[in-house]
């Protein structure tokens, strides 16, 4: 099989480098990249850690779509030519490695961090059967891989749009009654470049490896904001 890999490093022009890698049964895109790095070009840079689909470090754009390399079988791509590019909308560091710092920066900018109440209960419990818990649960498994931000076309067009990951986190906090920051975030949520900027294309939902739907979180926040405006 042919691996077409995006190559770039500071001071050099970008290019696509081809690697011929023998495809084996059960081989993933990450396996192919490791093989290319070990046998053909040790300067090829990419990030991975757990190799088993837990950490999200190996998120990249494979054949035009955001996927994690460690869980993408070559066989599943149904082609002998596989194109691998770094995630979009993040600062490039080198080759397939991007700087994921904007994920945390955008979350901080919209206040997507827990705000404790002045006198918190000693141990605030939210029961497993509580409606609040059931609403939050599907949205809390984010592993910060950045694939949703890469897939979002609105992030590409509006730098002030915080992106799906930050807004999904914001939804979990805004639904949590133990959090005291709801009122402070209202102005941010209603600003022109936040909730209203999402065009419900659901690209983020389609690519999330944890099957979270940031689109659903954004729509829920939007309904809540509109209800707040109407009183």
């Amino acid at each position, binding site marked *: 099989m042919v691996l077409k890999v995006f190559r770039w490093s500071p001071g050099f022009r970008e290019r696509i480098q081809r690697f011929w890698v023998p495809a084996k049964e059960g081989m993933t895109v990450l396996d192919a990249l490791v093989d290319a790095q070990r046998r053909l070009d040790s300067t090829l840079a990419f990030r991975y850690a757990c190799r088993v689909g837990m950490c999200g470090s190996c998120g990249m754009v494979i054949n035009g779509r955001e996927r994690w390399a460690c869980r993408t079988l070559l066989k599943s791509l149904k082609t002998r030519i596989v194109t691998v590019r*770094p995630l*979009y909308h993040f600062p*490039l560091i080198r080759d397939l490695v991007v700087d994921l710092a904007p994920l945390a920066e955008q979350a901080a900018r919209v206040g997507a961090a827990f705000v404790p109440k002045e006198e918190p209960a000693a141990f605030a419990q939210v029961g497993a059967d509580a409606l609040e818990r059931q609403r939050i649960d599907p949205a809390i498994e984010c592993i910060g891989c950045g694939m949703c931000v890469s897939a979002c076309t609105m992030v590409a067009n509006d730098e002030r749009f915080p992106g799906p990951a930050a807004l999904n986190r914001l939804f979990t906090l805004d639904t949590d009654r133990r959090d005291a920051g709801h009122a402070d975030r209202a102005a941010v949520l209603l600003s022109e470049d936040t909730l209203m900027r999402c065009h419900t294309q659901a690209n983020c939902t*389609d690519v999330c490896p944890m099957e979270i739907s940031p689109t659903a979180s954004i729509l829920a926040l939007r309904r809540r904001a509109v209800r707040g405006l109407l009183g």
Partner: protein
Amino acid sequence: MPKRPRRILRRRWATTEGWRGTRAGMWAWLVQRAAAIALLAVIVLHVRTPYWRGVQMTLLALVLAHGLLGARAIVLDFGLPVRWHRLLLVIAVALAAVIFAAVWGWRWS
């Protein structure tokens, strides 16, 4: 040491790679917007030539595409599970085809 400008990749829409992997929700959004722009031109044409069948058919097709994809977006806004968005697109397209065929049979065949 001077700080280098940040290099951020964006999809290049003028390339095939930029469109590769484009998903259903994106197509639904794009077609609805494109239909809105096309409607402006076709409505003007329709006012000038109200009995020209080709314009009537184009107008109906655009109205159906724009309206039904808009309805899809509205039901998602109102809380229908986002996981259904592809199914909703299929329903919108199928409904548009059925209505178009029904009007064709009634008025133009």
